[in-house]
């Protein structure tokens, strides 16, 4: 069986003011389909950089990445975009929603591009809004939602198209602990029911509580990688 | 440079590309305005000079009623003597008396009704360009009694050459029968088709004999040193003829009302284009400054919270706009001036110009004029309009609330 994600000797350097920063420093790891990984580490350790590389948003300086057995090095921008659209759900750390679209439309946006027909789109989006606890807020624009509500819309958009791989960067950052747990429970359920692979970058212990594998990074290197046992 | 000016200048360059685009819009508009206004001024001046210098003159002295009712009986007595006195005036650069009549002219092959003009042969050249356009033969003079000068086209029509005999039949001033046999002495080409087709010249003394005018003339045509000094010259003339109640002087504006109106209607349609151009540019400036104010809300919010008064911020905005407009003005004047200078040398030629030239007696090329007025009029209006464009953004700024502005709302 092919791995959901395969990283081999990934390096990504940033040059800033004459200094070289190792965003990723020879990162090696594999993710099997259906895993639920918590990616943790101090601020600036390279979590976002790694997620961007896996999502094909950023090209590493060296090393290989394969998603679903397809090597990203061989794909051009257009093919990478298609790959993201079809297989990957993204939740970004900071800027997530298109301001001119309502919450429901933001969720539908991906489905629209995938060519899903209108009634199906509406149904899926409404289901999704309910699942993330935003029932009735679907017609609001992002500027009319709180930070946490916006974050939930972003999560809903990332999973509505049933991607095989979800890359989430601090999805619980703006959420109260109750909502955060609800969201993680939703992730866990999707993971169990559909075998969706999750890689969630977070400092949040509640995320670790739901994850089944922990990868800890520091200075662009993986310093810890082990399964998490839950009772 | 005072701090506020420096601040305004720096603000201007926060978005270099945006600023340059707006400056370019203003500069282009200014260049167009300078060029078009220069071209208009150039063509009007040529049109005036050419039209007036051909025949009518800048001014005429006529019988009081002649202009409204051009009848032979409304004539100027002792015209030749009066013309001589007018010629003495320092303001007058040329004066010549004329008689105007209608007659049927016949060669041995053809006949045609035409205007017959009696001219003072030795002075006509000082008020009209026609003597200078002699194509064949010689001009009228003391040595050409009963000589007639034909236009190129009327000569063709009458199938007459130098030396041909032309019979003139008409009616005299007193209603009597006027007839004479004339000899063609020369052929001229005024360049004005209609005029050329319908006009012949004879000596004033012959005219007075044939049409029974005695010592009367129809008018005295006068030229002043330039079109801009007509008013002065007219005042001098009026002084001289003050004692003769039946006479009055008329300037070109009255003599050829069509000319001024044609120019005016041309100016009106040009003004329409200019206004639209200027509005479009002012809108560009308005947008530019509106964007500047909108994107600086947070910053304005902070400054307002710190205690900077609204009016200081508005002052800053206007300073910035004025600097922007000034750039457009300078670049525009430089480009427009250069363009004008270039075409002043080369000349501008339009489609249809040759045909128009025949109609209005214009040369085939027009040379734009560069004068402080043609150079500055357009750009200054654009400048003022642009500064006014900051009014709306300023009003928005005026109503900015520090708290919501800081939140970027």
């Amino acid at each position: 069986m092919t791995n959901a994600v395969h990283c081999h000797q990934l390096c990504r350097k940033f040059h800033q003011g004459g200094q070289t920063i190792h965003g990723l420093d020879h990162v090696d790891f594999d993710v099997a389909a259906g895993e639920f990984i918590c990616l943790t580490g101090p601020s600036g350790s390279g979590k976002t950089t790694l997620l961007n590389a896996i999502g094909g948003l950023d090209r590493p300086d060296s090393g290989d990445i394969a998603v679903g057995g397809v090597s990203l090095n061989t794909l051009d921008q257009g093919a990478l975009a298609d790959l993201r659209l079809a297989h990957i759900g993204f939740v970004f750390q900071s800027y997530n929603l298109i301001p001119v679209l309502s919450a429901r439309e933001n969720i539908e946006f991906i489905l629209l591009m995938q060519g899903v027909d209108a009634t199906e789109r509406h149904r899926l989006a409404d289901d999704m809004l309910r699942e993330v606890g935003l029932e009735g807020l679907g017609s609001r624009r992002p500027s009319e939602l709180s930070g946490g509500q916006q974050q939930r819309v972003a999560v809903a958009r990332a999973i509505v198209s049933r991607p095989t791989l979800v890359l989430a960067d601090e999805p619980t950052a703006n959420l109260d602990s109750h909502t955060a747990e609800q969201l993680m429970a939703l992730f866990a359920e999707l993971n169990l029911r559909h075998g969706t692979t999750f890689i969630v970058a977070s400092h949040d212990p509640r995320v670790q509580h739901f994850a089944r594998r922990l990868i800890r990074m520091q200075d662009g290197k993986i310093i810890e990688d082990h399964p998490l046992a839950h009772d | 440079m005072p701090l506020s000016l420096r601040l305004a200048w720096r603000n201007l360059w926060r978005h270099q590309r945006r600023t340059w685009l707006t400056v370019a819009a203003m500069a282009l508009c200014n260049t167009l305005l300078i060029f078009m206004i220069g071209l208009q001024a150039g063509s009007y001046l040529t049109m005036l000079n050419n039209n007036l210098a051909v025949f009518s003159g800048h001014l005429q002295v006529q019988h009081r009623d002649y202009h409204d009712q051009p009848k032979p009986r409304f004539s100027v007595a002792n015209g030749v003597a009066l013309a001589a006195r007018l010629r003495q005036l320092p303001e007058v650069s040329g004066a010549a008396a004329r008689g105007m009549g209608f007659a049927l002219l016949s060669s041995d092959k053809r006949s045609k009704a035409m205007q017959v003009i009696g001219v003072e042969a030795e002075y006509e050249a000082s008020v009209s360009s026609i003597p200078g356009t002699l194509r064949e033969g010689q001009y009228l003079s003391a040595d050409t009694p009963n000589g007639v000068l034909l236009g190129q086209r009327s000569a063709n029509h009458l199938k007459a050459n130098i030396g041909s005999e032309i019979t003139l039949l008409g009616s005299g001033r007193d209603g009597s029968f006027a007839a004479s046999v004339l000899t063609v002495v020369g052929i001229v080409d005024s360049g004005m088709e209609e005029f050329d087709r319908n006009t012949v010249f004879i000596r004033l003394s012959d005219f007075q004999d044939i049409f029974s005018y005695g010592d009367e003339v129809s008018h005295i045509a006068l030229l002043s040193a330039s079109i801009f000094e007509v008013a002065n010259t007219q005042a001098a003339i009026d002084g001289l003829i003050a004692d003769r109640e039946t006479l009055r002087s008329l300037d070109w504006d009255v003599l050829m009302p069509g000319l001024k109106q044609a120019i005016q209607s041309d100016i009106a349609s040009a003004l329409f284009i200019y206004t639209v151009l200027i509005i479009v540019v002012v809108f560009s400036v308005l947008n530019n400054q509106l964007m500047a104010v909108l994107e600086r809300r947070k910053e304005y919010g902070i400054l307002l919270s710190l205690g900077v008064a609204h009016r200081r911020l508005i002052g800053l905005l206007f300073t910035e706009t004025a600097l922007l407009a000034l750039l457009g003005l300078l670049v525009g004047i430089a480009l427009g001036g250069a363009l004008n200078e270039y075409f002043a040398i080369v000349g501008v030629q339009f489609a249809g110009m040759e045909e128009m030239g025949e109609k209005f007696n214009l040369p085939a090329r027009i040379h734009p004029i560069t004068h402080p007025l043609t150079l500055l009029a357009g750009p200054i209006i654009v400048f003022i309009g642009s500064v006014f464009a900051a009014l709306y953004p300023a009003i928005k700024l005026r109503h900015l609330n520090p708290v919501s502005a800081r939140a970027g709302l």
Partner: protein
Amino acid sequence: MSAKLPTTHLLALAWRNLWRNSERSVVMIGALAIAVAAMLFLIAMMRGLLNDMSQQNLRALPGDLQIHQPGYLDDPSIDYRMPWPSGDLLAELDGVGVARWSGRLSVGAMVASEREARGIQLIGYVPSREGQNSFNEWRLIDGDWPSDDSKGVVVGASLLEKLDTQLGKRIVLTSQGADGEIADIGARIIGVYRAEMAQLEERLVYMALPAMQSMLRSPDDIQQIAIFSRDPSRLLDVQSRFQQLLPSADIQRWDQLNSYLSAMLDNMDAIITVLIVVMFITLAFGLVNTLVMAIFERVKEIGLMLALGLKPTQIALMILAETLVLLLLGIAIGNAAAGLALLSLRDGIDLSAMAEGFAMIGAAPSLTPQFLWRDLWMCNGIVSVLGLACSLLPAWRAAHYSPIEALYRD
């Protein structure tokens, strides 16, 4: 699978993006609308003026097509005459392409009353053959137009005044006869007309053709055949048919008769195009600025869309759609404004205060704008095409942002 936003959604997104910064868009649309409206208005006025000049030029002797002897137009003398049509020519004239036709005489003449003499243009025509749309359009203020066999003349009101005479009085007309000798005739003034242009009113004197033929001693001869075609769009065909029939004759369409006017008519489209392009370029700087700013402040969002899987071409299309919506709005409002203005002026603008100026360029002092659909399409087309061209570069740049760089820019 390929990521694609359906057009309707693309437009909907463009529409919303446009109203995000509504003031900026309104200002831009306003500028576009003003420019478009002004251009359309000005073009219609220019066309109207030119049209009027052509019409006035023809007023004296109307006709879609005019046949003369070669040389006549340069030297309108009785020497250039031809017999009244017969045979093949007559058959063609009475054929299907011709609505009606007539023969005319037109010579320079001198008219004298008891007090005054003037040079005029004497026109002989067959009243029964000339339709309602010819000279008769001029207002007859006194008396009657001639009948085919009448011997009287119709003069303009201002000529009447200059000649110091009145209706019913006799005048003497003198010209050159067909034999080269002087021909004169005494005639009674039977009608007085008013024209739009005093210039014409003073020059044109009308009489019935037979009376004029006998005065000029050229029975049966005419100088001009005027043809009114049944279908103006097929005038060229009719012209070439007559030219084949009369290879040596000078056959001119109405728009060729005056060299100045025909040059202007030929160049009108070019002049209009230059005008629109110049106006647009002035506008373009503001347009580019608006577009660049609209993209500049949306960099993050564009990054997000790219990250979500939207293709660069789709981003570019989105920007183009936004520009298109902006342009179409401006154009629509501009067209509506120009339409209203032109509609309210469809009966003509009274410019009698400038009558002499208009007379000098050969136009009546009443200007009726002439609207052509062609001008509308040309103006709208040029503005849309150039407007979209302006957005190409910003759109291309937006499409080539790198997603994370855009997303994490501050």
